[in-house]
């Protein structure tokens, strides 16, 4: 069973293509020799946009991004963070069959240096 933190993908045993799961044969070579796999949920933004004239039923602005994850798998995702920019790392999650991208939390900043002994008030 797929780890809920990872993203399900399909691997083509014929052309070695990797892509998000979808009905039918390999979109690149037409082979049906596909095996399931997973990749980590982090991806790098290639492009992002804010749609200010979205399709009916979507709130304004509607954010979309194309991000590239491991094994060069590209993902179209709805952006839940504003201001996504090329090169930014995002975490991609699936909900109800759709992909959503959130900006990855930055690495924890180093805290203040620990004192060798508790401070004393002077």
């Amino acid at each position, binding site marked *: 069973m797929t780890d809920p933190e990872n993203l399900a993908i399909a691997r083509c045993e014929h052309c070695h293509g990797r892509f998000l799961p979808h009905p039918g044969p390999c979109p690149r070579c037409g082979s049906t020799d596909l095996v399931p796999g997973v990749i980590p949920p982090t991806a790098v933004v290639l492009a992002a*946009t804010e749609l200010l*004239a979205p399709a009916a039923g979507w709130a304004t602005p509607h954010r979309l991004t194309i991000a590239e994850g491991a094994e060069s798998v590209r993902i179209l995702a709805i952006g839940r963070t504003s201001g996504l920019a090329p090169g930014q790392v995002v975490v991609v999650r699936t909900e109800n069959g759709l992909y959503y991208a959130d900006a990855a939390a930055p690495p924890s900043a180093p805290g203040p240096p620990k004192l060798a002994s508790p401070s004393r008030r002077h």
Partner: protein
Amino acid sequence: MKVAVSSTGVGRFGKRKEGLVELLCEAGREALDGLGRKPVDLLVVGHMAGGPLAHVENTVAKVADRLGLDAGAGFRIEAASASGAAAFHAAVGMVRSGRYDRALVVAGEKMTDLPNAEVTKVLAGSLAPTEEAHGATMPALAALVAGRYLDRYRADASALDQVTTQARAAAARNPNAQFRTPVTVEEVRSSRAIALPLRLLHCSAISDGAAAVVVEGTTGAAGVLGLGQATDHVELVERPELTSFRATRVASQRAFEEARKTIQEVDFAELHDAFAPFALIDLEDVGAVGAGEGAAAFRNGSTSPDGPFPVNPSGGILGRGHPVGASGLVQIAEVARQLRGEAGPMALPKPPRRGLAQSIGGLGSHNFVTILGNSGAARP
């Protein structure tokens, strides 16, 4: 068999009161009149979505009926926003086969009967289902392509503005264009944001309109030298390239192989600029400039009417308007008019010998390239 364009017809693009059949017939009549009413034995009709957009089906029979071609054969061809080009390619193939002598090709679209939101939904039918499910629209995907292009090539977004200002300047000389007034860079940048970085004036307008050409077995200034078409993955993320349309590159290669020419032997082009970034990419994909050089070409005047490779002297889709089914055929008609000396106020300063038309279906998933030029007869 050599085939040439022997007559053309172009209607006015914009919000029209006429229905789809009337628009097709208006352009068709002009082309037939230019032919001296010689008999036509094949009618090929192109439109993307006459049913959903205009509640019109059975268009071949209706157009044939109105034009008095009811004894002829006919086909309707669809290739999304390249339907007009597809119809032309189909007609040329059928005339070349020898089965038909003379084909009237008409292509158009009626888009202003419905609210914009419903039109956008119909056009999104050419996208991949998963893209539509994520709320993507054609402008949204074009914006993602634009963003990737600008980032990858470190190109300044001002190149997009230049595409629009050049198109609108050319359209001001086109009596059939939807937009007859030039715009400034400031006006482009201050237009309403649609899908960043694209603003309203970076995007083509919903429009009504039609064009027509007659093709027959003959030689002439607008001979059909080469045709090429190709498809690509419908889903954008399935393509290895986001900054180039492989379908155009392959279609170009096929067209140039048939024509036995190179891009250096082509004098100008009508390129599919439904969105400003597409013009940059199209210019690269047909081989006129290298990868990533499209932005500089538009900025330095290389693509202006008096530049080394004029692009869209008729105003392009951005200036002319985008009745989607018509765009691919009106490009071919305008190339033919330049070659036949019939371009009027749009005539290039230096009379061209060969021209190229490039049309995009969907978001680059079914593209066509057409090369016209002198195929043996003296210019009329």
